[in-house]
């Protein structure tokens, strides 16, 4: 799936959930085996038009996420290309064991699309936030965990899963309509591979999800004060692109930034790798606290948790200046 800068601008306004629905329509036109399942969140998944245009390729199972995953596995077993959607905690926690059995143990090729992960559900509150989903999902053997950073990357990720045999997946959608774009022109996406956003010399920043848009702004601001950062998009949290460990040796200071709790996400993954590879470096993990926090608009929450570009820039400067 290719795109141009006009697409990127337009998709940014629509946001990841509406775009998910659009991408599914696009895939359905090319793949008759596609089945999209929802547990009463079709509209919230941008699937209203999909339902009308492809009624035979859409199933709503009602508000029953455990059942949703089992039904999806049955369809996958019969050769359908299955995408299921729900909000991040309802998939990763309520249906966690069904995912473990059907996608992990039996390896049924189902793609789970976790909507509104991170803090993007705003006023709906902690019940709807995806704070711990990466930590939970990446412990399930053979389940890919993919975290696209903007709508264009989401399109590439969905297309890649729809037309290749990658095995079961958990696709984590973060950000809201208007969240900063990471890509404004077409680029090459490869399953399981990191993508370099900017090259640099002073520090290494590893990041995933829509927060990458904020970090990109920080990198620009840092450049102005002569701090050169290498920014890598870790779009695949499982499998991890091991080439990242080569970069470790180059940098004395490494930063991970993510919209996920400090437990079990990118920060934990990289801490393990640094330790295993006996790298002498300083690691700063910027993430959400191991605590339920307040509720508010997405922008308010990013600021509250210090995940907006200004706060990120400050934290990075502090780390760079630290001796």
């Amino acid at each position, binding site marked *: 799936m290719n795109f141009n800068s006009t697409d990127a601008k337009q998709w940014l306004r629509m946001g990841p959930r509406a775009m998910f629905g659009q991408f599914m329509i696009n895939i359905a036109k090319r793949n008759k085996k596609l089945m999209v399942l929802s547990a009463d969140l079709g509209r919230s998944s941008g699937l209203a038009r999909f339902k009308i245009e492809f009624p035979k390729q859409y199933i709503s199972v009602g508000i029953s996420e455990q059942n949703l995953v*089992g039904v999806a596995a049955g369809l996958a077993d019969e050769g359908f290309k299955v995408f299921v959607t729900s909000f991040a905690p309802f998939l990763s926690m309520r249906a966690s064991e069904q995912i473990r059995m059907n996608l992990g143990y039996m390896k049924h090729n189902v793609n789970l699309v976790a909507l509104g992960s991170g803090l993007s559900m705003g006023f709906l509150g902690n019940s709807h936030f995806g704070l711990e989903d990466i930590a939970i999902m990446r412990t399930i053997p053979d389940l890919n965990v993919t975290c696209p950073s903007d709508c264009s990357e989401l399109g590439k990720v969905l297309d890649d899963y729809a037309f290749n045999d990658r095995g079961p997946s958990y696709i984590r959608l973060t950000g809201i309509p208007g969240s900063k774009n990471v890509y404004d022109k077409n680029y090459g996406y490869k399953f399981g591979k990191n993508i370099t956003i900017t090259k640099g010399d002073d520090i290494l920043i590893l990041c995933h999800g829509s927060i990458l848009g904020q970090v990109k702004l920080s990198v620009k601001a840092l450049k102005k004060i002569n701090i050169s950062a290498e920014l890598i998009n870790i779009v695949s949290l499982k499998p991890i692109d091991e080439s990242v460990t080569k970069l470790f040796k180059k940098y004395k200071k490494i930063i991970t930034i993510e919209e996920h709790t400090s437990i079990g996400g990118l920060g934990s993954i990289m801490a393990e790798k640094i330790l295993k590879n006996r790298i002498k470096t300083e690691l700063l993990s910027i993430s959400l606290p191991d605590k339920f926090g307040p509720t508010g608009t997405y922008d308010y929450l990013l600021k509250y948790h210090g995940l907006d570009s200004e706060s990120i820039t400050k934290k990075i400067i502090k780390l760079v200046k630290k001796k």
Partner: protein
Amino acid sequence: MLEKVNEIKKLSYKIRKTILDISYNSGEPSHIGGALSMVEILAVIYSNFNIKVSKPLDRFILSKGHGFLALLSTLYCKNFIKNKKKIFTFQKNGSDFIAHPIMNKSIGIETSNGSLGQGLSFGVGLAISYKKREKDNSIIVVVGDGECYEGSVWEAAITATENNLNNLFIVVDCNGHQNDGAINKMMNFEEMKKKWLGFGWNVNSCDGHNISALIKVFKKNSKTKPTAIIAKTIKGKGVNFMENNNDWHHGRLTKNLYLESVKSINKNYSL
């Protein structure tokens, strides 16, 4: 009909004997009681439906995974597994044959199981696929009565009626017991019928050890609804000292107990 019933009776005996042989041979405790309660159910399903390995037509899903001894024995007796040595690896270190099924399509094991309440949703997925592909075959899922405490069973029950899955059967093996003992009266045979009726299923009930009755209820399916067969069974059926004795939910056969249990089924089935 009579000939067929006799044939299935013989098969049921063979399955029972194989369950005891495998369990004894393992030297380990295993789920004998709940396997013995579903012998006739499996014997009828594997005799009356078109279940094949090479070309999947009718499909059988064991949702009460702890009934695997019965499925393993059935697969052996129906020639899905040809090598007798293979079944005697049951519960030996490293074997694929353990307390609960591990998916192995090449010998007819459709799903991995062991976590209750998951088989029906998978069966619903298959049944929807069959409808979409205009395949005429049936999906049969066996659950336990205790398993029906799992909420996910009822989530799947709703999806099945909403999609008019008349190609889907569930058999509830009502042996009246669960891990910790007798099942509460709110989940007994009579209540179970009401529950499935309430969820909009076509409900038939019968003595789950009566072969001709089982054959009949499978024929009383509906044109629009999924069918629930509520089968009243006896946990440990056929072995006198095991019947309705929940110590045999998961128990170990010593040599003496094994010999006594074989004597018991020989007497009860006069073969």
